């Protein structure tokens, strides 16, 4: 066993040695540092991606059930364009009667140009009702939302997405009070939403669904229906109720009912693949770092074989030699690993300004363990070879 006194001596000797060989020390630590840093960073980015996607879903409202035309979420948009159910106010009225349903929001959706003061921009027109803002957690940075009576009367007012307001006017909030034109329809801007980061939301023109009746939506139909459920645990029951209600009017393949968990599990499947790829890339950089460590350690021990012989000649045991190199490589590995972690954390801190990257303790521990193991293995392996030579063989080694 190594006693404390022997160990402090070994540590001191190792640190003294690093001071003597700054370049070698720096290079070895650098290898480990880069390995640890890249793996921790890649995993942090992977987790960030997951957090980002989950945030996006949560911002849509946790108790959301979506009804789409067609038979599945993946084909939803396309199917809606070519076939499947076309929902209308009758569906809204029958769905609101299902127990525990808090909101039913008709969603008319159309990509169209919007004009103001001679400028024309692409936008996504969404005809909805006043509950949309609550269900989707939309906040305004200026003006106000339209009300229930605006929806009932089909008042020609709109709330713009942040990017659209910003592109059409000097300041996004300048939009409030101005008039914009959607094809032949003139509507007054009464509010601007805060920035969301998703393209559709930031370029939305949101207006009372009845205001779209006419040239925009002559058939008075909706692309989708959003349902707000009173609480999360009622989502499954509500979905069943919705399906039952809609089956009275449509065929099974003409609509699909999805909620967050369906979407999230699909997203999680994708995320797991992305994450595996990131971990694979990270492992490669750890391996490359490991080979770097191996080379330096190997060169170090080889270059110091004569020294090993001299130490043996004055009384060092094989174990003394092994412990010396073990201590050195352990310190180098831990030092390099800590540096890698610090750099990774700093980078993650900066990245977090734009993207919810996150450092995961388990990944840190595993990475740290692997890089230290590589450092120690390749530090001790050649040292063992040197220690096993007879002292005179080691002294004569060139």
């Amino acid at each position, binding site marked *: 066993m190594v006693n404390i006194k022997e160990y402090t*001596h070994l540590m001191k*000797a190792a640190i003294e*040695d690093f001071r*003597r*060989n700054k370049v070698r020390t720096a290079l070895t630590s650098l290898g480990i540092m880069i390995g640890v840093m890249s793996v921790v960073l890649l995993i942090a980015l992977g987790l960030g991606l997951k957090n980002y996607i989950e945030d996006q879903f949560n911002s849509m409202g946790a108790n959301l059930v979506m009804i789409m035309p067609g038979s599945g979420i993946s084909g939803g948009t396309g199917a809606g364009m070519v076939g499947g159910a076309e929902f209308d106010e009758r569906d809204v009225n029958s769905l609101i009667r299902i127990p525990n349903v808090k909101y039913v929001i008709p969603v008319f959706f159309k990509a169209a140009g919007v004009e103001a003061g001679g400028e024309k921009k692409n936008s996504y027109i969404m005809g909805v009702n006043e509950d949309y803002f609550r269900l989707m957690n939309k906040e305004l940075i200026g003006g106000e939302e339209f009300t229930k009576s605006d929806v009932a009367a089909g008042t020609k007012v709109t709330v713009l997405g942040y990017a659209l307001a910003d592109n059409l006017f000097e300041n996004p909030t300048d939009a409030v009070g101005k008039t914009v034109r959607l094809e032949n329809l003139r509507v007054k801007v009464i509010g601007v939403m805060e920035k969301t980061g998703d393209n559709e939301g930031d370029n939305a023109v949101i207006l009372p669904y009845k205001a779209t009746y006419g040239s925009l939506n002559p058939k008075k139909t909706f692309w989708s229906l959003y349902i707000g459920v009173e609480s999360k645990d009622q989502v499954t029951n509500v979905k069943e109720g919705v399906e039952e209600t809609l089956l009275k009017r449509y065929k099974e393949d003409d609509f699909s009912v999805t909620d967050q968990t369906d979407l999230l599990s699909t997203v999680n499947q994708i995320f797991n693949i992305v994450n595996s790829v990131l971990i694979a890339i990270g492992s490669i950089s750890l391996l490359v770092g490991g080979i770097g460590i191996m080379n330096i350690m190997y060169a170090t021990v080889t270059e110091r074989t*004569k*020294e090993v*012989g*001299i*130490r*043996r*000649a*004055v*009384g*060092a*045991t*094989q*174990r*003394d030699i092994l412990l010396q190199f073990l201590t050195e490589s352990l310190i180098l590995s831990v030092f390099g690993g800590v540096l890698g972690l610090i750099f990774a954390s700093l980078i993650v801190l900066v990245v977090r300004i734009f993207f919810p990257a996150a450092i995961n303790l388990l990944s840190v521990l595993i990475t740290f363990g692997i890089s230290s193991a590589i450092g120690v293995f390749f530090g001790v392996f050649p040292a063992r070879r040197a220690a096993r030579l*007879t*002292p*005179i*063989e080691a*002294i004569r080694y060139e």
Partner: protein
Amino acid sequence: MFYMIKLENVFKSYILGDEEVVAVKDVSLTIKEKEFIGIMGTSGSGKSTLMHLIGLLEQPSKGKIYLDGKDISKLTDNELSKIRNKTVGFVFQSFNLINRFTVFENILLPTKYSKELLKFDPKAKAEDLLKRFGIYERRNFFPNKISGGQQQRVAIVRALIMGPKIILADEPTGNLDSKTGEEILDILGNLNREFGVTVILVTHEHDIAAKTKRQIYIKDGQLVERYL
């Protein structure tokens, strides 16, 4: 009769490719406590190999070696290391100092490997020895910044720091000019006379061997009656 070192029919051979090189052939030899002995022989006769065997830097292929009463073939690595550390001091022709270490650090190196509590203060003893051998001023120098004679003195101090019973000096003057060589030989003679250290001196020069009290001759790995 008490012996310090005893060799019984010792062989040492090396395999070089398909060839077996016999460096030491059937050597039997007894060296008593406090002897000052010279081992003479031409280059390649096996002197160094014999010294390495006595100093436990390698093991014989055949035969027995007893050191300070112990059969060394029966010892573990830890026990062999302990003898190298405590009982034997080696002085090489090419000094074999660690160039990354200062003179002082080189001298203290054996004390780091003592598995027993030292009965002396290593630093105080090192300073004392450095002063005695006139290299105290050089204690913070690196070996390649001092003269050959000074380096050999450092090596001698390193060999002495643990208070050994035996000093093995393998052509210690081989890399030095004759005046410096004389000084080193005087130091070794003194160690034997004043401190009773058993000194074995290997050389191929007659006038150097003449300084020792007894000479042994080796030729082609075998001990011979004096030749020439």
